[in-house]
């Protein structure tokens, strides 16, 4: 049982991989040596599907948006948009047409990806295993699928590195290359002798932002998903426990999306601040 449980958990936590070996496409175990050039197709698939769900829903509402009495879906979406807009306006006091849509995209996308947590842990792997076995002649144990994209560090780092690029870009754009360099080297000790110390301190501060953003989201969701998988191994008792844990995720899922969005706004607003 212990070995079974171990392999069960491992199976659920393994991404579906795709890579090229000797010029042809290979999957999963064949990709063990592919290193960096491996693609997690489940992460990509689910994140793209969820991103498109978000964008197409919002786009269809935006196209039909009336300025008169709105429908229920329009109301719901406008509530989210208003919520994001308020958060941005409270924190970011500049004029930047990118920040608000960026925040909305981050919030909704991360929210939807986190929400995949609620899908019963065996549902998608079982369906995928059945499809793999029936249509592709694979061993169902060799079909891997991880349906929560935010439990993949590639996903969370992609988001945070995107934000990091924006921080650098706006720091240089607003303060100029000289201003940004000064900020990195003349703080917190404004003396030429301290330039190396300052640079080390400020670099750590700067680098810590994307790293903490990505790891916070990844850690929370990975741990949450891991517990869901552990609960799934305890037999019949899993039903009430599973319910409790899922109810708890009512907090975790939107909270993590909100934190990611809020910190993005804060970091970008710091990047816009001229000392």
């Amino acid at each position, binding site marked *: 049982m212990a070995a079974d449980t171990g392999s069960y958990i491992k199976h659920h936590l393994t991404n579906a991989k795709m890579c090229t070996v000797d010029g042809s496409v290979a999957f999963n175990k064949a990709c063990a040596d592919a290193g*960096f050039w*491996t*693609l*997690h197709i489940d992460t990509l698939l689910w994140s793209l599907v969820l991103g498109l769900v978000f964008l197409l829903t919002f786009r269809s509402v*935006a196209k039909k*948006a009336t*300025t008169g009495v709105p429908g229920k879906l329009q109301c719901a979406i406008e509530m989210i948009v208003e919520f994001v807009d308020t958060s941005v306006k409270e924190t970011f006091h500049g004029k930047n047409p990118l920040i608000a849509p960026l925040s909305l995209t981050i919030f909704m996308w991360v929210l939807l990806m986190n929400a995949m947590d609620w899908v019963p842990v065996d549902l998608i792997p079982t369906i995928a295993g059945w499809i793999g076995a029936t249509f592709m002649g694979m061993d169902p144990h060799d079909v891997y699928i991880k349906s929560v994209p935010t439990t*993949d560090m*590639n996903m969370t780092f992609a988001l945070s590195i995107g934000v990091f690029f924006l921080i650098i870009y706006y720091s240089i754009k607003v303060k100029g290359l000289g201003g940004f360099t000064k900020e990195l080297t003349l703080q917190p000790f404004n003396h030429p002798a301290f330039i190396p110390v300052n640079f080390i301190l400020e670099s750590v501060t700067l680098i810590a932002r994307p790293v903490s953003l990505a790891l916070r989201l990844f850690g929370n969701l990975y741990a949450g998903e891991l517990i869901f998988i552990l609960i799934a191994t305890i037999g019949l008792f899993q039903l009430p426990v599973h319910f409790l844990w899922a109810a708890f995720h009512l907090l975790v899922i939107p909270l993590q999306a909100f934190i990611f969005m809020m910190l993005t706004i804060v970091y970008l607003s710091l990047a816009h601040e001229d000392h």
Partner: protein
Amino acid sequence: MNINVTLIGELIAFVVFVLFCMKYVWPPLMGAIEERQKTIADGLAASDRAAKELELAQSKATAQLKEAKAQAAEIIEAAKKREAQLVDEAAEKAQAEREKIVASGYAEIESERNRAKEELRAQVAALAVVGAEKILERSIDAAEHSDILDKLVAEL
């Protein structure tokens, strides 16, 4: 650590999603929200204005009503005065008329009585003459004794 090329794929997806959201999602939604906010604010302001106008109109109407009431009272007062004056005038006129009529009546009666008296006197004289003639027969010459007769007539 499982960092691999997926990260670059997700990064590209992220950029594309944000750009799409910035171009095709955020502006129309925000535009609709802001326009509706403006409409609602305008509506509220208009209703405020209308309420103020109503209040103003009401106070104006009250003032006008008061003024009209005062005017009506004034008019009624004047009419009453005029009425009393007319009645007085009419009464005075009627009194004068009556006096005139009564006076003329008296005068007529007087003249009638004088005439009747004159007539009666003449007739009595004639009767007296006739009576005396009959009593005295031819003894009395009318022409001779006319002066006595005249004296008699005058005594009547």
